[in-house]
């Protein structure tokens, strides 16, 4: 199909202009700041330091630890979020009587944003677990990460479920009927028919959960904070503290840029892998 340049501009330019102004320009300004030493206050002079901030980042053991920790957390959570998300989506697209109620209930956690949720979960992992002799999970190096995995999964599974539901509903009924006529079992239908056709949904959900997990902040600060000996500190919290608690604006920005590059590489790899596996209709 041939589309003229004028139409192209009319359809894409408005959004792209807004997007450039709101997201791209501030991001570029942010990159600019990463070459300066500055405390973030306009009245205080910024000193140009070239790539020194970047050099420092790679010597910052606390940040490197947070990097590894966030990556591990993300890999685990992406799996659990999507596993639960797809199971939920499959359950609520069956003909079960309770499917509509279940759909709403499973989605509910995502409706409640913000910090209050972290505080509620904190009382579960701390007070409740202490009262049944499971110990305080939030001060344990491994269990505190598990706690964050649990809470994040709880919040996001319903979110990706929505996307999976859209995908499942879009599978043409005749394809499924054909599979049934051929005598395919439930599992066969699931793995041979449904999953391949859900590839676009997988691409989207993996990406959404990946980026959400990498950027984890609210759950981190409200549930565990930095933790004993920084054992629970994730990327975003580390950067936030660098910029706003320690007033190292330039250095914090350098961290943020590196952080961005890391996620970008990982997620772009993920998108290109899953995109290739999508089935064209």
């Amino acid at each position, binding site marked *: 199909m041939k589309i003229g340049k004028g139409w192209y501009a009319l359809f894409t330019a*408005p959004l792209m202009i807004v997007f450039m102004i709101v997201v791209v320009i501030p991001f570029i300004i942010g990159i600019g700041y990463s070459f300066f030493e500055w405390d973030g*206050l306009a009245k205080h002079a910024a000193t140009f330091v070239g790539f020194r901030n970047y050099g420092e980042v790679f010597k910052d053991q606390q940040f490197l630890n947070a990097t590894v920790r966030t990556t591990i957390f993300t890999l685990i959570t992406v799996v659990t979020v999507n596993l639960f998300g797809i199971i939920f989506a499959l359950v609520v697209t069956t003909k079960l009587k309770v499917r509509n109620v279940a759909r709403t209930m499973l989605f509910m956690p995502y409706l409640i944003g913000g910090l209050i949720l972290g505080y509620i979960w904190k009382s579960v992992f*701390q007070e409740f677990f202490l009262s049944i002799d499971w110990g305080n999970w939030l*001060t344990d190096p491994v269990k505190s990460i598990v706690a964050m995995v649990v809470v994040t999964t709880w919040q996001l599974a319903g979110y990706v479920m929505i996307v999976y539901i859209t995908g499942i509903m879009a599978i043409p009924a005749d394809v499924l009927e054909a599979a049934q006529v051929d005598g395919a079992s439930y599992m066969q239908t699931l793995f041979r028919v449904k999953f391949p056709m859900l590839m676009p949904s997988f691409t989207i959900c993996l990406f959404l959960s990946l980026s959400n997990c990498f950027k984890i902040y609210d759950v981190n600060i409200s549930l565990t904070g930095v933790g004993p000996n920084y054992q629970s500190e994730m990327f975003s919290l580390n950067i936030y503290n660098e910029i706003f*608690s*320690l*007033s190292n604006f330039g250095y914090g920005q350098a961290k943020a840029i590196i952080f961005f590059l890391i996620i970008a590489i990982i997620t772009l790899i993920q998108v290109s892998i899953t995109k290739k596996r999508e089935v064209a209709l």
Partner: protein
Amino acid sequence: MKKTGKVLAAVLIMAMVMSLMTGCGAGKKSGKITIFQSKTEIMTDLNQLAKDYTAETGVEVEVWETTGDNYYSDLKTGLSTQAGATLFSLQPGAESIEMADYLADLSGLSFVNKIGAGMADEINGKVVGIPYTVEGFGLVYNKNMVDAASIATTGDLINYLKTSEADNPLGLSQEDYFLIAHILNAPFAVQADPQGYLDAVLNGSERMADNDAFIEFAELMEAIRESCTNPVDITYDNNCGDFATGKTAMIHQGNWCTGMFADYNVDFDMSLAPVPVTGNKKISVSVPIAWYVNTDATEEEQKLAKDFLEWLYTSETGKTYMMDKFNFIPVVDGMKNNNLDPINQAVSEAVISGNTIPWVMSNWPAGIVTTDLAPITKEFFTTDMSGIELVDKLNDAFVAAAK
């Protein structure tokens, strides 16, 4: 036709948005000040006060909202982008020094010379910060369970912790300031020259582990880990709840916590005792937060903000709000609060009798409590690190942050 309708609707919405955007360029300043402050507890009353002020003077006052945790980063972003409030709050000390270029000279206010000694925030000889109130902290104790007179030294306190029959003899809680900042203030504040000592620690010429006060502090922290409920397992809410219900004999807290007891039927008397490192008999009292006027505001706005402060501290209405509604401890001559609870009363008396040690912690490097001191202390409470190792690690964090 339906589809065309949709397209039309879309275009209409676009047009509406565009017109709204250009329509809002007009200025709106005609006698208005904005207030941004971090004490969320007084927010509701402050909004009412703003209305009363407008009714009295015709000047519009707008109070911006924030949560306690987001305040400082919001303020900084605002100031740095020339979009700060006219009147805002800061902690005098590291925060106000960092922001010094944004703080207007308030020396001209009529009541400045009536502010208690050392309570106005002065930078380069000019008064820039007007104190809200004073706050004090120490050991808030249950009089039925603790005989304060018998705890005169660190040894006495440790002995009490080991022999007490309370579920929890001394409660700290997991929040950064309640876990370490406040209690660590004591060994700094009992030094002969607290500020000089802090400077020496920061430049590395003194080691905390060589100082008696810190050695006692180390022993105290070990005793707390041994004999008390692990502070990292307790939240502020529960710590206060345990105290109010008699499960905890004393908590290391300040006068701000009395609001937490309001819902409980507290059936015992309480008071405030000092942390007795090197025999200290004074509680830590200081101005937690003060008012500042933004130099980036227009001359006229700055004038209005100063008028507002003048009114707040000298008019009957203003004083009534400060004393009766905000329940502040008076810091300016001529104000009196007649309904202070016992802890606030203890702080107020300490101020009058001069029985106080300063908050050295206000001058610690900005951000250090959250980013370094708390994680180190949590490590102490979850491992078998010795008290002296704790002090050494804290010391290293101070030196690193000062660089």
